[in-house]
């Protein structure tokens, strides 16, 4: 377990380093500047003299290499810089958004797992049935819709027509406000999970050891609970990890649509306002989340798969 963790962490370090560098370089060539970004709504005129001074103040006119080195140094000690826009530390900006973001991603993933995995299971066990066909067509449909469109439809249906749930916003951060954005975000991983689970269960059902189990005189339900489930899980866990890890990044659209105060909407806003330190911070967080989730998944493997535990 520890060995896996250590190995994983050693692998993660260069990835993070590369991301840090990449993010810096990408955004240092971004056209437009945060000052013109203040005019996002087109309703503000800015004083050019101020602009010049601020550029200098923020070191934007320094040579790229110099800025890069400074940036690396700061990032290494966990200082993500100061937001151009709010003039607060980026770490604080992100910290404010972290909890809602985590809530949304976890809720979406929970939804995806709670619906997708059982659906895939049932579809596989009833392979070829109407239920199977219907759930798989449904799953593929879920993958074929733009998220913002799906979100609008959910709002329209559940908030405007049925009046069951609020259409937007964070509210008290509770379930009522969380439900719709979580579903909008969770549908595509749900669909993917349903499909992977189905394929995984079919794979396992065709495995030799399942035939062995049947030859022992085991009933189908026991075969499934004793031998199929865990083995299928091993195959599904990777998908869960990849989906889960990238969810925070995918949340951009949903957060924007539902006014959910997550890192994704901060990121988009910051991109449009050219608040480069904030953008860099957000991306680092999203990458970090991805790597953390996948490290956890690796550890989960160790728990459920003895071949890795003793390998």
């Amino acid at each position: 377990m520890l060995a896996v963790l250590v190995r994983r962490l050693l692998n993660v370090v260069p990835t993070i380093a590369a991301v840090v560098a990449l993010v810096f370089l990408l955004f240092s060539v971004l056209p437009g500047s945060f000052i013109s970004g203040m005019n996002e709504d087109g309703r503000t005129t800015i004083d050019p003299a101020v602009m010049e001074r601020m550029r200098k103040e923020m070191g934007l006119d320094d040579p790229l290499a110099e800025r890069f080195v400074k940036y690396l140094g700061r990032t290494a000690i966990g200082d993500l810089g100061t937001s151009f826009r709010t003039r607060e530390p980026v770490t604080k900006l992100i910290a404010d958004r972290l909890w809602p973001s985590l809530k949304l991603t976890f809720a979406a993933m929970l939804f995806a797992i709670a619906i997708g995995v059982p659906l895939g299971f049932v579809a596989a066990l009833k392979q070829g049935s109407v239920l199977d066909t219907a759930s798989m067509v449904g799953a593929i449909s879920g993958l074929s819709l733009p998220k913002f469109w799906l979100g609008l439809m959910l709002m329209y249906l559940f908030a405007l027509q049925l009046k069951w749930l609020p259409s937007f916003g964070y509210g008290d951060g509770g379930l009522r406000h969380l439900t719709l954005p979580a579903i909008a975000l969770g549908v595509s991983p749900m669909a993917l999970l349903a499909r992977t689970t189905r394929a995984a269960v079919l794979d396992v059902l065709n495995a030799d050891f399942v035939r062995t189990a049947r030859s022992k005189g085991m009933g189908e339900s026991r075969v499934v609970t004793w031998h199929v489930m865990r083995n299928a899980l091993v195959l599904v866990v990777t998908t869960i990890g990849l989906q889960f890890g990238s969810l925070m990044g995918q949340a951009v659209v949903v957060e924007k649509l539902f006014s959910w105060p997550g890192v994704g909407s901060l990121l988009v806003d910051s991109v449009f306002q050219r608040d480069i330190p904030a953008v860099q911070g957000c991306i680092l967080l999203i990458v970090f989340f991805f790597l953390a989730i996948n490290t956890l998944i690796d550890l989960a493997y160790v728990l459920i798969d003895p071949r890795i535990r003793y390998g």
Partner: protein
Amino acid sequence: TPRRGGTIRMTAPYGASMGSLDPHVTPRAQDDILGKALHRTLFNWDSANKKLVLELATSVTASADGLVHTFKLRDDAYFHNGRKMTADDIIFSYTRIMDGSKGYPAARYIRVIKGAVDVEKNQAKEISGLRKIDDTTLEITITDRVDPAYYFFAGSTAILPREEVEKGNFAANPVGLGPFRFKEHIPGSRVVATRWDKFYKPGKPYADTFVLQIMAEAAARDLAFRSKEIDTSILGPAQYVAYRADPELSKGVMEVAEMFTRAMVLNPSFKPFSDKRVRQAINHAIDTDLIIKRLVKDKAYRATSWLPLSSPAYDKALKPYAFDPDKAKKLLAEAGYPDGFEFELTTSQNESWGLPIVEAMIPYLARVGIKVKPKLVEVTVLTEIAMKGEHQAYIGSNLTGPDSLATLRCFYSKTPRTACNYSSFNNPAFDKLLDEAAQSGDMAKRNDLLRQANLLVQDEAPVWFFNYNKAVMAYQPWIHGLQANPTEITHQYVEDIWIDERSPAK
């Protein structure tokens, strides 16, 4: 009679987050929606009478040369921390804004005060033009003969209490003089403020709570408004039509001619646009009225020239360019472009003055032989391009009020491109008119001169005059006391707003 209590639920429609809750830091219109609730400025816009009025002072007297203004300050204004406002707070706030190392956006207004620039350049610690007579009397010396009201009413010149600012982290705990005191901010989602009982207007504010929901997505706002989760919403053209057509919703639609002029700015350094006839031809070639009627759904007023409707120097008799493709063709032929030409038009995605308008212009210009290559950029980049003059033409929205002189200064030859002379306008006759207007102390005379200047701009056609914005706000039947503010419709004086029992938010 206004009911006390309840919650005002307004929306911030222009971006997915607030810039900063420190009013000095942010120049954004959206942030000022909140600013109106939390903070106060020396002057304020009175929407009912369409003029600027004193807010934190009870009277002002000007010296004979019009440069020294003595303000008698309110003595009943309390900061949310309970302390009474004094002249020191104004001096502190204006001095803070002039901190050159921070580049606060309102510096451009405060610079009008004598000695402010020295502070900005770090040559002085104090602004010499600010003098405290006593706690409630303040003397401000300015550098030009201008109406100080235009300079001290912007939200970014709000008066802040020194002790709170110096605690640091002011943006997280803003303290001001406004009718509501800050309660919580969930970045990216909403800001909540509660009634400030020691607010200086007796009996106000009415509501207990003020909530500002951040909702940049028009579609989401529409759905939320219809499901009664918000009290006000800004409408785009499509929804404007729908709301007006709806028997229920149409009762809650407020319109105002905002002081924004939408126009396609033509860059004279692009050869064809250096010829006045070409610029006029463009104005003739496009059926602007039809675009406004059908595409913008009448959610705008036809622009005749640069000055907007609510501008003091607006000329009601002025006729816009007529839609006349034949004349346009003739003008083009005269200018040496009988077969037209091609140009690149930089635009943003904005639904009222961006891409959709461009798409509607394309066929019209095509009919007179002019080919348009649209170039879509973000607003951020648009501003940048306009300032650098890298465009052949761009279409945008320009803040044009309420000071007509300041507005027309955008065509003054000495105004740099970066400070809004985006069309590099250079016309001696115009400069002369403007100089005279600036000298003149007589308001009527000044307005007359400005009217002539405005006419000249129309004839020169440095831009395609499109429209003046008609801002439309939808509101729920239970919200009362909204004002039609032509500087920015979302800027409401929340102390005057009250909510009746029908509100689902109570």
